[in-house]
């Protein structure tokens, strides 16, 4: 019988998945209009094959939500966003979901149907994530004013009432004056979500 010598193998895997990250959520308030940067534009297809271009939603207050079907905290928020979509639709408000599921529509289409999601969902790519500073944690949600500028960002689950307060504030008059968009080459000039795996 052959023997296997594993004695000299150091079990050095310990450090290879020591997870690091931010355990606190980002609870930034609505930014002053002068501090808002333009939301990076993207065009992605929704579940019906229709192209959704973010900049086409300008004029609306937009809740842009990065999520995935495997994300437990994301499941909590989605019904809230459906409520907001219904409640504020007539006030020029839109929710747009960006799924970061690796298997794309295979998981997402049944999910949308089962939960009867009433707002457009697109499948995000690596590029979409990079545009938004590298979306590492889910859910990550941006509130975008009527001029297409990012007014708030939340990483992780927050309360429905916090979202509601911010949405209403943007709808009520802090939604941004529609003007020529501010050109910005870098969305996060002083850092963004900072989540790392230490391997």
């Amino acid at each position, binding site marked *: 019988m052959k023997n296997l010598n594993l004695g000299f193998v150091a079990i050095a895997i310990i450090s290879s*998945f020591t997870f690091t990250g931010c*355990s606190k959520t980002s609870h930034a308030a609505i930014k002053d209009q002068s501090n808002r940067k333009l939301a990076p534009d993207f065009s992605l297809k929704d579940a019906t094959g229709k192209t959704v271009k973010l900049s086409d939603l300008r004029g609306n207050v937009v809740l842009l939500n990065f999520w*995935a079907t495997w994300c437990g905290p994301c499941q909590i928020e989605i019904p809230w966003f459906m409520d907001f979509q219904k409640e504020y639709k007539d006030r020029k408000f839109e929710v747009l979901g960006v799924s970061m599921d690796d298997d794309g529509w295979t998981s997402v289409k049944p999910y949308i149907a089962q939960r009867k999601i009433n707002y457009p969902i697109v499948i995000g790519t690596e590029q979409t994530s990079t545009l938004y500073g590298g979306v590492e944690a889910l859910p990550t949600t941006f509130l975008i004013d009527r001029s297409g500028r990012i007014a708030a960002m939340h990483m*992780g*689950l927050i309360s429905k009432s916090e979202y509601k307060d911010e949405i209403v504030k943007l709808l009520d008059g802090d939604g941004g004056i529609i003007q020529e968009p501010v050109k910005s080459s870098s969305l996060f000039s002083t850092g963004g979500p900072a989540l790392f795996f230490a*391997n």
Partner: protein
Amino acid sequence: MKITAQLRPGYHCNSNTPSDDYLIPLRLSWTAAPLTVSGVVYPKAQLEKYAFSDKPLSVYTGDFEIVTKFKVPASAPPGLAVISGKLRYQACTDRMCLPPKTVDFSLPIDVR
């Protein structure tokens, strides 16, 4: 052979048998030739309740070990070789989730 994983406080990862179909399980797989894998033994999972879930989830927290049992076939050539493994996991706190990740690793072996 034992692999030890360490999760930072506040984080959990789904066990190898998560509570719901939509959750991504912990999975250790091997490319073990010239060896064969006779079994992978995962630790006993904890059932933990989180704010985002109606029911307790089957998870690992803190430090845990996964044991792999190997067999050496009679046909295995003697000498040094390298086997490789992949550990796929997906970790969350009670408020956010990190993307699923696969850690690749390789181990030298000596068949005598």
